[in-house]
């Protein structure tokens, strides 16, 4: 018995490796056959590369003022032109990409984690549910942008505060998605089976309900990511976001607004990047929904 065991364990380990490899291949195949998610991913990779490599290949820093070269048209020297202080727009948009996408990603991760915890516990404990959901009702009654402006007014214009404001505005949305799918999972027989085993609430919530709510959560979070980018841009545009002179897509647009008739590049380039980022995330999210949904057989399309 003592001798036989390691052999069986080895065989099992080999088996596990095989099956995991097979699954991985299937996942890769599905990923590449899903055109939407593929397009979204390519655009996201491009944006990430732009945000990190852009500042390196640009010969200007985003804050370097060159009054002689104000509002220069896009040229071989200034690829995206310059702004009303003569700062290089390419460099500013690339740095702005870091800020905007950074804010978006932080918001996405924070809302996912906090929203998930709230959603799971609200679904499991009905008293808690009543309290948390009334609070979230109240938060959702405010338009996102007004709520965010109010929070920014209290906290002051800082990139970190933008993350806090947008996260607070978006947590109820994510919490509700998690809660509603957790409520369905909670009623499944396999949860009852776990209770019949004497499993603790902790085990049921984290080991059994959570894995079944991950797919809708991930999909929702990609949308929150996109909305966070828009909200950040809107806040900065209104002057309540990332403070000047640090670049973000929103405040570049704000600067460009004054000179919109004689310097189109100042609105077109940051605007185009906002559109691209949001489009990429939405495509990615839509594709992911098809990919993760076990009921849709589209995922298997050859």
């Amino acid at each position, binding site marked *: *018995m003592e001798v036989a*065991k390691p052999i069986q364990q080895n065989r*099992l380990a080999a088996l596990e490796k095989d099956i995991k490899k097979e699954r991985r291949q299937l996942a890769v195949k599905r990923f590449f056959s899903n055109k939407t998610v593929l397009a979204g991913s390519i655009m996201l990779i491009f944006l990430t590369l732009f945000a990190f490599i852009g500042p390196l290949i640009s010969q200007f820093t985003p804050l370097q003022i060159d009054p002689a070269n104000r509002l220069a048209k896009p040229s071989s020297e200034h690829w995206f032109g310059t702004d009303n202080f003569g700062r290089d727009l390419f460099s500013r948009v690339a740095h702005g990409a870091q800020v905007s996408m950074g804010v978006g990603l932080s918001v996405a991760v924070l809302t996912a984690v906090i929203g998930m915890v709230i959603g799971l516990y609200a679904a499991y404990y009905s008293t808690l549910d009543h309290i948390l959901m009334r609070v979230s009702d109240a938060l959702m009654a405010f338009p996102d942008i007004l709520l965010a402006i109010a929070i920014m007014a209290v906290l002051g214009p800082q990139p970190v505060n933008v993350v806090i404001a947008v996260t607070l505005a978006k947590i109820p949305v994510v919490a509700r998605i998690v809660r509603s799918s957790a409520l369905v999972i909670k009623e*499944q027989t*396999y949860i009852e089976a776990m209770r*019949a*085993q*004497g499993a603790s609430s902790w085990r049921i919530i984290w080991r059994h309900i959570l*894995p*079944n709510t991950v797919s809708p959560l991930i999909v929702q979070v990609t949308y929150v990511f996109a909305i966070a980018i828009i909200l950040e841009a809107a806040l900065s545009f209104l002057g309540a976001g990332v403070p000047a002179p640090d670049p973000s897509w929103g405040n570049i647009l704000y600067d460009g607004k004054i000179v919109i008739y004689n310097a189109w590049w100042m609105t077109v380039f940051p605007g185009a990047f906002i559109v691209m980022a949001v489009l990429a995330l939405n495509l990615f999210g839509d594709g992911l929904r098809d990919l993760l949904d076990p009921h849709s057989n589209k995922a298997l399309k050859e």
Partner: protein
Amino acid sequence: MLLQQQLDGDKPEQKDSCAPLLQVRNLKKYFPITSPFGRLKGHVKAVESVNFDLYEKGTLGLVGESGCGKSTTGRSILRLIEPTEGSVNYRGKELLQLNQSEFKGFRKDMQMVFQDPHSSLNPKKRIGELIEEPMEIHKIGTKAERMERAMDLLKRTGIREDQYFRFPHEFSGGQRQRIGIARALAVDPSIIVLDEPVSALDVSIQSQVLNLLEEIQDEFKLAYLFISHDLSVVRHTADEIGVMYLGHMVEKAPTDDLFANPLHPYTKALLSAIPIPDRKQRRERIIIKGDVPSPIDPPTGCVFHTRCPFVMDQCKTIKPEMLQQSDGHQVACHLYN
């Protein structure tokens, strides 16, 4: 081996082999119905004073139609639903008096197999993990030992061991039910509550699972509480059968006795309503009229009097007692007073 010791160790020795393993007395479950404003509007009387004994290696069948309270009875015993009243005595220990953490130790001894093999296994878990989980919850054995036992159980219930890492959706309904049975066996229970274990399965798969249940009963020394709406299935598996109607047990008898000599008019109607797949055995049917009354407002007196072909005046007012007619054959009906 540590695992085996842990599995056997804390199982109390049965002193008297004739004493029942599980004694259920006056089990009652009312579900409150409240209005949207939280005011109590009434009760669904799902189970009303159910009594039975379950013996070691024995099988008690609970039959009845939907809404008769058979599943609620099974779940109340496992305290998946807290019963309103009554006593459940397991090896001399009163289970309903224990708090949840004290009761957790007893959950190991009482397992359940569910009707729907599709929703009773977590789709995100590998079947190996599913079988190991009960052992993990009760902190039995080491990781390697649990794995070993899970493989053995898979093999025993007719699933190839190399399927260990597969997910439930890769199996057919019958195979999933086998996995559910393996999971119930993992902690070496003494009682398994089988809640309609074969009703969701195809005919040719049904017999495979029924045979498996029969085999493991001897092998693992199990007592079954077999809940089913299908009298022919229960007849094949149970030693004793309790017939339930609207929360009441109306007749209880050893299986052969019940089929040879059914006493309660409801049992008679139930038996005659079963279509027999044999043309030579056609018989006169007793088709009872109407539907089962609402359990919120059950009929007074005998609950069956609204549909009973032999209804008498006293049936409408006086509730019949469960009385012994012959050896082990009990019936609650005024016809036999």
